[in-house]
């Protein structure tokens, strides 16, 4: 039902070819190096992606030619900086199917989620007046998350529940790494005020049926916040079509710099929400006791903004659009299946999440019997292979799957099939090295 990710929509999409990927890699200076004597094999894009030259040049060009504070000052340079900054907002909005004024800059996705949580918290204290009452929470209200959330989409809601007296509930994860939709249907009910869930799991790679869950939330009048950190970088996104109320994503996971993220909110909701961070650049009139606030998105952008990062993120969006998000998605789906198929051949490997043949984003997490993830990562690192080890900021999900830590290989548009194969071949050496018999 998630139209943007259904395999059927990909039937005629040609994945990026190996030759195209080789050309893409020339745009990424970081790949031109050896790590421990081996070419860098970067399989940690789920944590942070690498930057193409055009992104770094956009940031440098801004500082060299156009640097000035935005939305203040009446000089030529400041006008130019403001125009470029706002053009970046428009570019990112178009990239995810949003209106420009629905895009709020944040430092990262985590801050975007906290912005919503604290705005609701402030509404619960009566801030924002009658219009904001729809966001007020109290005893008897329920916030629903899932058991597969990144800590960033869990702890802000735990804290909001503690501050307001609301109850936090969660949709369980099944053994195959998918959500228990039958349970979801009974958990999402009359008391539900907000459903916060991830689009694609950063651990198990599952792509959640967002549209189905939105229907459940709509039926009870609940709002929906989507953690799109692992989807916006990897598949075509149309937030308006998905019909979620809020969404967050981070620039550094989609070829952009660190320090910039996005909160998407429907215009009519942002318009009624009280601010989270307050200060300069978000007000109209101020006296010694009160202040009136600007309309969104500026209402939520207090203080000097991340100007160069926003502009660099727009350059990243250009790069992704020119490459083709549908072709990136198709390529990564192939890489994800190549990972899963290869892992199945290695004795002692237990894949976490959907089995081979079932849709997943281009990553795979696994447990290797008898060898701790940290040791797996160390062995791979010695061969120049960068993977993530640990709980990937998702302790409850790991606990649910019966492991304390796992190893994750995650791909992106610049990942070659040779890199996936080298990873698999090196991984096959690990258990024998540690003296684990299968």
């Amino acid at each position, binding site marked *: 039902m998630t139209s943007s990710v259904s395999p059927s929509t990909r039937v005629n999409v040609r994945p990026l070819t190996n030759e195209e990927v080789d050309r893409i890699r020339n745009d990424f200076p970081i790949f031109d190096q050896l790590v421990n004597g*081996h070419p860098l094999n970067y399989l940690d894009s789920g944590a942070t992606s690498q930057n193409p030259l055009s992104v770094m040049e956009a940031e440098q060009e801004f500082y060299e030619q156009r640097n000035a504070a935005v939305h203040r000052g009446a000089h030529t340079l400041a006008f130019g900086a403001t125009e470029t900054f706002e053009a970046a907002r428009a570019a990112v909005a178009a990239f995810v199917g949003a209106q420009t004024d629905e895009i709020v800059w944040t430092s990262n996705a985590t801050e975007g989620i906290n912005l919503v949580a604290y705005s609701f918290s402030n509404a619960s204290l009566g801030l924002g007046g009658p219009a904001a009452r729809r966001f007020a929470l109290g005893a008897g209200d329920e916030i629903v998350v899932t058991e597969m959330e990144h800590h960033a989409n869990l702890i802000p809601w735990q804290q909001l529940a503690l501050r307001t007296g609301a109850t936090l509930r969660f949709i369980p994860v099944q053994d195959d790494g998918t959500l228990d939709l039958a349970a979801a249907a009974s958990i999402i009910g009359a008391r539900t005020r907000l459903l916060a869930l991830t689009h694609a799991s950063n651990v198990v790679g599952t792509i959640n049926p967002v549209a189905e869950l939105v229907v459940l939330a709509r039926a009870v009048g609940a709002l929906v916040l989507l953690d799109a950190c692992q989807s916006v970088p990897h598949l075509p996104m149309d937030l308006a079509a998905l019909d979620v109320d809020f969404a967050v994503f981070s620039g550094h996971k989609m070829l952009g710099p660190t320090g910039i993220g996005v909160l998407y909110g429907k215009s009519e909701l942002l318009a009624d929400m009280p601010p989270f961070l307050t200060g300069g650049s978000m007000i109209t009139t101020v006296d010694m006791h009160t202040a009136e606030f600007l309309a969104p998105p500026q209402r939520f952008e207090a203080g000097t903004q991340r100007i160069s990062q926003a502009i660099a993120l727009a350059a990243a969006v250009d790069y992704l659009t020119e490459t083709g998000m549908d072709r990136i998605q198709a390529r990564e789906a192939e890489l994800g299946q190549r990972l899963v198929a290869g892992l199945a051949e290695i004795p002692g490997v237990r894949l976490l999440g959907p089995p081979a043949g079932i849709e997943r984003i281009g990553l795979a997490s696994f447990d290797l019997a008898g060898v701790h993830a940290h040791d797996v990562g160390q062995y791979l690192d010695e061969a120049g292979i960068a993977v993530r080890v*640990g709980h990937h900021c998702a302790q409850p999900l790991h606990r649910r799957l019966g492991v304390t*830590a796992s190893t994750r290989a995650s791909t992106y548009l610049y990942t070659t099939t040779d890199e996936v194969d080298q990873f698999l071949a090196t991984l096959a050496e690990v258990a024998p090295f540690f003296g684990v018999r299968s």
Partner: protein
Amino acid sequence: MTNTAMQQLYQQIILDHAKSRHGAPPEGLAPLHAAGLPAGLRVTESHQVNTTCGDEVTVRIGLRGTESAGEPAFGSVGEPANDAVIEEFVWTGDGCSISMASASVLHDSVRGESVESARALLNTFREMLRSRGTIEPDEEVLGDASAFAGVSRYPARVKCAMLPWVAFEAALLTE
């Protein structure tokens, strides 16, 4: 791949300790209040987590005080006297081979030793791990713990090796 660097890091003695886990009961540790440790011991424990990777270790020690200079050298609270003896040492944990082997080696190294000599060993071990490979371990002093010299060349793994030692140090200071 040639495994020379990996073999220097993961010495056989480390892999062996990681498997055999001396001092770690297979069933884990009973709650402190229910633990059947000998009478007259001051029993304390410390649980430490490596937040980078989630590895965790709980070290529980039982100290026996001795008489020196005509006074009880060891009270129920406060820092233990140097000549108190680490009569019991048990641990439980979940983590990488470096941290688990280190706990096992720690058990072998300090059980039955005085607080003073255990502290001296702890300092020597820590100094070696922080040396980035510049300190040659003295096997006479360190015993099996000298196998962790290779870890000092991997700054990201120093915490793994130190984790049980930090727990031990904290347990010594726990009232």
